[in-house]
């Protein structure tokens, strides 16, 4: 085992060596972290020294982790502090954490990692050395002392300058070895008292932050302490100026005085002359200056000016300055700057500036000519706008913004030669906002008008929104051919269509009645079997419809009493649905789109009540009817009709119910057979029960019967043709065709419309009145099929009333179902 290990190691070494030997390349050497340093405790840098690179290009990466955390980060900035360095900026530096730093060298072959270095930022703080060290000797009260001044080290990367450094200064005579170090504190200057005169000193300064180490010592500064026996230092002439091209003044700066009081003299000579003059006036212009008055000023001649410093020991002369007065003219700034706002013809404001030349300048004689320049800016702006004006002393400015405050300044210069003067004092001007009354009035009017319009519109919308909508977006009328059911059109049953169009006999089954109401043949049996009349499609619709029957009626039978349905119909719902379906289909086939009857099978009562709940409960507007049933009444008006649905039970359905119902027997047969109306008529027993059924009572006044209530005779269910809800609310009932089925009922005659609601009884019973005036036309066949109503109408037109009630209990999704119990019906048929 060991041997194997050893041999494998040997092999590996061999490989490595051969690799090295062959190629001369290997993995890199171990880098070494030289130092880490922070300048100000907010950032720090680390430098490393690479090891051997193994002959291949090597990449160095620095990894660090904080305190004892596991997570390892990489250096945020490699280049900032130079090559082989890593700079940690403010965001990555935390003074209170210890950094564990390693540098890894990687090349193609492999990598090598340095030893980890633990860095605590506060301990590695070392600022840069102070800068700008200056030394000066000063004499006061015959003692000489040395002034040392310096500046704190500059910080490049960190913005906050609120670092407080402590300083130390050290100095020694040049020849000596030992330094004398003095702690200065936080000041940036220091006064040295004990000096040896005549000795050359050298000084240095260093600084430190509150934590960390001292910086390096700054560069050396030397100074020679003048002993009491030295001549003064050479003065220097600063400048010479002429304020008005008539006189001029020169200023100089004295050097060190060498320990003794020093006199300064200014000497000059003119061009072409040998004679040397002394300054005529040392006082007028202040200390260390010389004033040449008019008499002593000559133009177009060069002056040779020097300053001589003299003390007890000796003297020293400054460098000469050659001056031609014509070229050193610099006047005072212009005065009397006035700003005035004027208005143009268009009432636009513009600024007129005027000023005067400086008082000393003699422009009048032409001896001195000045050029002017002005600058202005809005108060809050940063940049000045400078305008060269020339020799005039006024200016007009047009392009100013109203409402802003401007600052204006002017300065001047002698033309061609000389320097610009200082800027004059700032002058402020406020531009008034251009407030045209006319404009404001216009805007106010516009605003008021538009708000008025908005108000009016919103008000009208609120009040008559509905009508407005109707007005603006009128509902699309369907093809209102009486007798044609839109639903029919939609479904595309050609037969019905054609029949609707009045094709006699074309449709095989239908009579081209406009309205065909199908009746189911109901067997009076316990089984409650209903024989579907036709086998048509559209079961879904009915089913849907049935499903909607959620009446919660009290259970009394009524034409379409929900209770009846709910109680009795549930069981046989399926059948019912089928029946209904077929019914509907039939109806549709027969062009009798209006199928609104739902038939309820009352077991006990054997009443089949076809009651289209949905349709019933649906309001008049056909639109409300879901697609399942063709709307009974193709009403497309958006009339929010009373929720009345007439339960129309064609033929023989004698719904009943009213208060009197109880007294009566179920008298209303419900017959639904489309074809065999007659027979079925009686079969149907419509039992509406009783009492407070919300039922629709269709009361028909039989001849000679003025009773407003139902007669125990056959009640006729009339299909409601439409509900008119305009000025004359009317429920138009379709007259039933009554071809011979019930002799009783056949009443040829005019179709009747029951349009008028004579009364509303009990808040939920509408008593209709037939309106014989209205001819019910549309289908030609119609006259043939007149319902019993017609028959009876003739007699008791006025008294025919149909109660339309809205049974509250009747439930459908939306509202109570409505039933109509026509007092007598004549089954309609084809």
């Amino acid at each position, binding site marked *: 085992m060991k041997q194997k290990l050893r041999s494998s190691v040997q092999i590996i070494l061999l490989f490595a060596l051969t690799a090295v030997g062959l190629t001369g390349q290997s993995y890199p050497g171990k880098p070494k972290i030289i130092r880490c340093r922070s300048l100000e405790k907010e950032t720090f840098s680390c430098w490393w020294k690479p090891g051997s690179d193994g002959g291949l290009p090597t990449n160095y990466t620095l990894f660090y982790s904080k305190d004892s955390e596991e997570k390892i980060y990489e250096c945020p900035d490699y280049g900032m502090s130079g090559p082989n360095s890593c700079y940690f900026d403010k965001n990555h530096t935390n003074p209170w954490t210890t950094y564990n730093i390693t540098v890894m060298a990687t090349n193609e072959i492999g990598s090598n990692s340095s030893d980890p270095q633990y860095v605590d930022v506060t301990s590695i703080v070392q600022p840069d050395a102070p800068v700008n060290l200056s030394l000066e000797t000063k004499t006061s009260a015959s003692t000489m002392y040395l002034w040392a001044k310096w500046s704190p080290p500059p910080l490049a990367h960190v913005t906050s300058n609120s670092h407080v450094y402590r300083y130390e200064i050290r100095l020694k005579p040049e020849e000596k070895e030992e330094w004398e170090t003095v702690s200065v504190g936080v000041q940036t200057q220091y006064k040295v008292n004990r000096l040896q005169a005549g000795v050359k000193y050298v000084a240095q300064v260093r600084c430190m932050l509150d934590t960390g180490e001292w910086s390096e010592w700054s560069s050396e500064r030397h100074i020679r302490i003048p002993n009491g026996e030295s001549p003064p230092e050479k003065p220097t002439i600063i400048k010479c100026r002429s304020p008005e*091209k*008539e006189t001029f003044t020169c200023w100089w700066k004295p050097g060190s005085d060498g320990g003794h009081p020093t006199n300064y003299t200014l000497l000059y000579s003119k061009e*072409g002359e040998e004679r040397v003059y002394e300054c005529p006036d040392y006082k007028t212009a202040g200390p260390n200056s010389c004033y040449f008055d*008019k008499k002593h*000023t*000559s*133009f*177009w*001649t060069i002056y040779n000016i020097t300053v001589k410093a003299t003390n007890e020991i000796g003297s020293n002369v400054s460098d000469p300055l050659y001056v*031609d007065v*014509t070229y050193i003219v610099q006047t005072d700034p212009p005065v009397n700057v006035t700003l005035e706002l004027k208005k143009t013809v268009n009432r636009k404001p513009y600024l007129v500036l005027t000023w005067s030349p400086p008082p000393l300048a*003699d*422009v*009048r*004689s*032409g*001896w001195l*000519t000045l050029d002017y320049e002005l600058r202005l800016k809005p108060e809050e702006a940063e940049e000045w706008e400078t305008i060269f004006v020339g*020799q*005039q002393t006024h200016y007009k400015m047009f392009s100013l913004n109203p409402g802003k405050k401007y600052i204006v300044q002017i300065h001047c210069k002698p033309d*061609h*030669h000389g320097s610009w003067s200082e800027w004059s004092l700032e002058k402020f001007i406020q531009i008034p906002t251009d407030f045209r009354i006319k404009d404001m009035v216009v805007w106010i009017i516009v605003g008021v008008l538009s708000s008025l319009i908005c108000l009016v519109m919103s008000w009208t919308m609120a009040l008559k929104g509905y009508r407005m909508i109707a007005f603006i977006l009128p509902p699309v009328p369907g093809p209102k051919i009486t007798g044609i059911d839109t639903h029919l059109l939609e479904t595309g049953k050609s037969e019905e269509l054609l029949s609707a169009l009045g094709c006699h006999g074309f449709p095989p089954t239908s009579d081209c009645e406009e309205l065909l109401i199908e009746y189911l043949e109901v067997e009076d049996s316990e089984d409650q079997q209903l024989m579907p009349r036709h086998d048509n499609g559209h079961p879904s619709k009915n089913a849907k419809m049935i499903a909607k029957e959620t009446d919660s009626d009290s259970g009394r039978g009524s034409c379409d009493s929900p209770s009846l349905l709910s109680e009795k119909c549930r069981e046989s719902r399926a059948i019912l649905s089928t029946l209904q379906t077929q019914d509907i289909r039939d109806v549709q086939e027969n062009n009798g789109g209006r199928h609104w009857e739902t038939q309820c099978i009352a077991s006990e009562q054997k009443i089949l009540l076809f009651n289209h709940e949905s349709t019933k409960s649906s309001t008049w507007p056909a639109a409300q009817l879901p697609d399942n049933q063709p709307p009974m009444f193709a009403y497309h008006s958006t009339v929010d009709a009373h929720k009345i649905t007439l339960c129309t039970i064609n033929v023989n359905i004698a719904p009943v119910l009213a208060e009197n119902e109880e007294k009566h027997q179920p008298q209303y047969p419900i017959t639904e057979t489309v074809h065999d109306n007659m027979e079925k008529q009686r079969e149907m027993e419509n039992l509406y029960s009783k009492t407070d059924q919300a039922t629709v009572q269709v009361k028909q006044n039989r001849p000679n019967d003025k009773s407003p209530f139902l007669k125990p005779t056959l009640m006729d269910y009339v299909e409601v043709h439409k509900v008119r809800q305009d000025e004359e609310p009317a429920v138009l009932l379709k007259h039933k065709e009554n071809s011979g089925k019930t002799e009783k009922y056949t009443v040829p005659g005019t179709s009747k419309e029951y349009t008028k609601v004579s009364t509303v009884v009990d808040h939920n019973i509408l008593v209709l009145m037939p309106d014989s005036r209205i001819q019910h036309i549309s289908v030609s066949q119609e006259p043939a099929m007149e319902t019993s109503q017609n028959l009876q109408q003739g007699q008791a037109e006025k008294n025919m009333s149909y109660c339309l009630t809205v049974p509250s209990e009747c439930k459908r999704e939306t509202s109570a179902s409505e039933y109509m119990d026509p007092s007598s019906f004549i089954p309609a048929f084809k």
Partner: protein
Amino acid sequence: CHTSGMLTPNRKEYAQKIPREELTHLILKLLQAWKEPLSHFNQHIEHHQELPDDSLSKAKQISNMVHELKTGVEKMQSMGIISNSLNGMASSEAAGLSISNEANMMSDSDFIHCFRRDSNKVQSYLKVLKCRIMPENSC
């Protein structure tokens, strides 16, 4: 400078005191004194390859301007604008100056320096003259 010998007012008071005709005469004299040296100078610097073209054209321009100025002042003088009397003083004296070798021996920098000074003199004198003759125009 070759015109240093000329006695010209070197102070404002002198310039204001000197009679107009004399001042005009001085101006013309100065302008005349520079006519020849300028043309000589132009010839001289044309051979200097290191000067940019701007300088050469500028120098030519300057000599033209001097000539025009002189012509203008002479015209004004002959028209009697400057003085009330017609004065056609010849400036032979100035002509003599310009021919002298002194002008030709100046170095370029001295030449330019002298010319600058004299042109400034001429300008100042003309301005003083202007404000004396017509004080209402921006004086």
